[in-house]
């Protein structure tokens, strides 16, 4: 029997739907971290006092899985120092004072692409990482030696509030088509499937228009059930293929790219301008004027919120990304990252939750889990530090989508416990391997 991926219905709150992105004022200063991707941080190649322009490389790729970083403003390098990012990690960041001119780097030119290798190199040099939020360097996905037959474009956008992908699919449809055509030239996909939740009608229409121009493209309209945009969920719901725990999309012949990732690949291939700015949704009950904003990477969240009229009430929580999987930041000085697709300032009412009680064994967590694992049982096994049980329960299958925590009437932090359980399981596996070796 086919697996039935479950999920939950959550409020959509797409207040910015249909709002084209507006370019914000040039910030006076940007702080660009060297680690905006999964993998090794980039290595700075500028020094304090250097003049840079928009698109000037300021840090180079370091190692196999890494990504170069470019200046998002024109101006002067003011400092290279460690900052604390949202996960508490200290990373090096380059601070650039803007001259307000936004002069593009005059050495920038469109790359020559004549082969698959050229294409992968271009994606690498574009500085693009998975823009859906995970930040996995995009070129690594294309540089697989596995047989790839399907390109899946993620336009599900299942998180509440966020509309930046939908806006991109509407406003940058031609760029998405161009990126698909270029990639297809070298990969010769059997199919290109664009998966979009059914409530994003404008994005569906826009993508159906490009599908009419390129026959390999199929637009797959998906139910608006969270987490439709989860990579493995999307692959299953568009192709029927199962990516098991520890496996990658390439193992089932798929490459998955976010719609915004594709639009930005096109921009680099057409113009040579690397990833220096992002369309981000700015929303949440505490924000005065919710908007889709084009913000230079490295702009402080404070500057972006200011551009949206500031706050109507004191924010309780400020997030990178959506309320289901986003990361809460400790202060507003943190910068917009490559993979930032939204910044939200939630008020007290939006974050309100009932008191945590004992588990009442209602089963809502396991019944709403997309992958059918049992978070309540995992929580118990984690408490007992029972790695064997965690293995049996499939704790490593968890993608931390948060359905369990959301739905739990006892308000238990199930996703958080799953994350800890997953870590414990990985540590125990590593230990076992060591013993064997």
């Amino acid at each position, binding site marked *: 029997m086919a697996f039935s*991926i479950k999920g939950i219905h959550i409020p959509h709150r797409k207040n910015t739907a249909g709002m084209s992105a507006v370019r914000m004022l040039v910030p006076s200063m940007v702080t660009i971290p060297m680690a905006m991707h999964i993998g090794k941080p980039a290595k700075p190649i500028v020094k304090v006092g250097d003049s840079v322009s928009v698109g000037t490389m300021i840090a180079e790729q370091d190692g196999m899985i890494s990504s170069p970083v470019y200046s998002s403003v024109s101006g002067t390098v003011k400092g290279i120092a460690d900052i604390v990012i949202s996960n508490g990690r200290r990373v090096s960041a380059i601070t650039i004072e803007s001259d307000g001119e936004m002069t593009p780097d005059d050495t920038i030119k469109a790359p020559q692409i004549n082969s698959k290798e050229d294409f992968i190199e271009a994606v690498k040099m574009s500085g693009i990482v998975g823009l859906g939020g995970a930040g996995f360097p995009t070129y690594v996905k294309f540089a697989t030696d596995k047989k790839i037959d399907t390109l899946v474009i993620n336009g599900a956008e299942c998180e509440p509030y966020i509309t930046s992908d939908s806006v991109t699919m509407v406003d940058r449809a031609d760029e998405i088509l161009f990126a698909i055509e270029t990639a297809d030239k070298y990969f010769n996909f059997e199919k290109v499937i664009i998966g979009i939740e059914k409530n994003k009608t404008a994005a569906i229409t826009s993508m159906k228009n490009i599908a009419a121009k390129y026959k390999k493209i199929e637009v797959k309209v998906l139910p608006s059930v969270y987490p439709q945009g989860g990579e493995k969920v999307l692959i299953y719901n568009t192709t029927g293929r199962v990516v098991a725990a520890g496996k990658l999309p390439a193992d089932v012949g798929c490459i998955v790219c976010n719609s915004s990732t594709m639009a930005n690949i096109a921009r680099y291939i057409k113009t040579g301008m690397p990833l220096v700015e992002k369309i981000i949704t700015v929303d949440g009950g505490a924000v005065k004027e919710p908007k889709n904003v084009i913000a230079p990477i490295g702009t402080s969240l404070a500057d972006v919120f200011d551009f949206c009229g500031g706050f109507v009430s004191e924010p309780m929580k400020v997030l990178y990304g959506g*309320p289901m999987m986003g990361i809460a930041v400790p*202060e507003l000085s943190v910068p917009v990252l490559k993979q930032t697709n939204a910044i939200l300032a939630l008020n007290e009412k939006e*974050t309100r939750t009932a008191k945590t009680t004992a588990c009442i064994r209602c089963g809502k967590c396991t019944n709403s889990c997309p992958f*059918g*694992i049992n978070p309540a049982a995992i929580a118990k096994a984690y408490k007992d530090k029972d790695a064997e049980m965690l293995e049996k329960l499939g704790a490593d299958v968890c993608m931390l989508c948060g359905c369990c925590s959301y739905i739990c009437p006892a308000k238990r932090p199930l996703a958080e416990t799953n994350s800890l359980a997953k870590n414990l399981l990985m540590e125990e596996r590593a230990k076992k391997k060591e013993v064997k070796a």
Partner: protein
Amino acid sequence: MENKLHVSFSPHIRSNNSTMRTMLDVVIALVPATVAAVILFGLSALLVIAVCVISAVAGEALFNLAIKKEQTVGDLSAVVTGLILALNLPANIPLWQAAVGSLFAIIIVKGIFGGLGKNIVNPAIAARVFMLIAFGSMTKAVFPNGLDSVSGATPLADLANDKSVNLMDLFLGKCGGALGETCAVALLIGGIYLIVRKVITWHIPVAFIGTTFLFTFAVEGGNLETTLAWVLSGGLMLGAIFMATDYVTSPSTAKGKLIFGIGAGVITVLIRFWGGYPEGVSFAILLMNIVNPFIDAKTSRKVFGGKK
């Protein structure tokens, strides 16, 4: 303001349901049956209900104090236990017995096993069975005659002795039995409310009542009228809708719930026709509660990409 931002693990929004809201929904769902009990059995019903609920809540509060545990009466689960137990008792039960039953449910069945979510059998069911064995007053049915309730045979006993019963009376509750179990229509309204509010799913009540119906129909040689009389009598509706669906003591998945309901239905009919007691619903649920961990373990959901 900068350092006032809250930082925590995702998700950052939560559904607006809660343990308390869930329990409150069960109480709301029991309102029709409670009102019916008071109308049918009069003031004595109200007294039994009050005594059960108050002793359940007070028992939990004092037990928490005694073992120095955080107070949990606010989650309303003790109210639910007290109310459900009351609806399982006859109107003329001595009030001290009602109080003892309630305390047994809260302290012995739930409290010492670790409180909410930790009990292995449903507290109200276990208390009902305990009282059935301990107190003779439980075995005589009380008929709703306003304030002048009289004791006599239950419709189940009548059915067992091949006496005819009026189906409409059974549906409306004009027959002998415990306070809350006689009025089928009130219980069904409550059940529909719970399903609409997504507190319970249809699986257990439908499997339980459906199995009882089919099995009885076969035993009764295809006589629809007596089959319906059996289905509408005794504690089946109350048990199937409100007690067998207790989260803590029933399976989590749809498949598990169906097995649980079918098992309870089969045991109910076995006891009703061939057992020593006229009613089997309580024993059926109690027995299924005991095998629940096994059913739950065997019917867990398949994990995505898993080998199973």
